[in-house]
């Protein structure tokens, strides 16, 4: 049972990749990419968790309480920002792709076959 969080991370990584590979719509490709990335959130937070640990905020808890690791949370925070920005950039590209190619199927996005 203690492997469950890690297994979920593997599942998200692979199923997201499958979404990208089998996609017929660029928006699906991008959202699948977000799923791949969420694998890293789950993995990082699972690694930093300590049984019975409290969130690393010490406003009104006794100083001896077990705290979960704050470092992984910072990494995930950065990661979330990266996800938002990359998704925005890719969607902007897809909007333009649709203007140029008249399609968002990766099959049709092949300029060199003209």
């Amino acid at each position, binding site marked *: 049972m*203690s492997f469950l969080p890690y297994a979920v991370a593997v599942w998200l990584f*692979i199923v997201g990749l499958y979404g990208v590979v*089998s996609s017929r719509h660029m928006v699906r490709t991008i959202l699948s990419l977000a799923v791949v990335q969420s694998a890293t959130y789950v993995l990082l937070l699972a690694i930093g*968790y300590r049984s019975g640990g409290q969130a690393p*905020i010490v*406003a009104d808890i006794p100083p001896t309480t077990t705290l979960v*690791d704050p470092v992984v949370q910072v990494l995930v925070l950065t990661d979330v920002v990266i996800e938002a920005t*990359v998704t*925005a*950039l890719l969607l902007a590209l897809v909007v333009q792709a649709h203007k140029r190619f008249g399609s968002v199927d990766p099959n049709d996005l092949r300029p060199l076959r003209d």
Partner: protein
Amino acid sequence: MSRRARLWLFGVAGPGLAAVLVIGFRGLPAFGHYHGVYGLVVNGVELSMRHATDYVTALNFDLRAFDTLGEEYILFASVLGVTLLLRVMREEDEEFSAAGRGLDGSSDAVRLLALVLVPLLVALGVYIVLHGALTPGGGFQGGLVLAAAPAALILAGRYLELKILAPSWAMESAEGIGAAGYALLGLGGLIFASVYFRNFLPAGNPGQLLSAGFMPLNSIAVGLEVMGAFLIVWTAFLDQALLIRRRSLEAR
């Protein structure tokens, strides 16, 4: 490759990669039994030095402030990228009808709700930004909530009012001032304490608003940038969706 060949290739490679990952992950400490030294040291250092009570924000804006600098510039670069990629092209027109187009079919009740939402969002956003070092949240989360306040107007069905309430120069300045401000706060450390990103303000009392050294300032700078950044990105996309039309074929 045909779709079938592609799926076959992935059908072999995907499980293979999964197996590799599982073999690697088996070496991880059992869930809940992590004893890394970094987090423990941080928990010890931070309260005693800066009197911040939210260690995550403390790491974000102090110990690993340089990462956050990189992160802010990733945001900045993507905003530049989105404006670049969604610029108005030669064969396109912008529609500026007097009423402004909103999302179709928003009822009066939704509009009223949205208008009530705006001040609430502003208050919440400011609170989250300012209390970054004390409670969950910080510049990023608060800044996004702040950006949502004018965006709620879209729900009220007046997209052009968003552009009046949050004109592009204001958004761009907020973003630029925030991004530059954060880098300059790092520079403040260089000037006042001779090390980049060295805290140069007193620590204050734990739990008070003006505590944790320069973290609240960092949080405000990031908040400003994130607010501006998301408003610019949203406007760029909504412009595309609601305003920009391709000229009809005859005109080209």
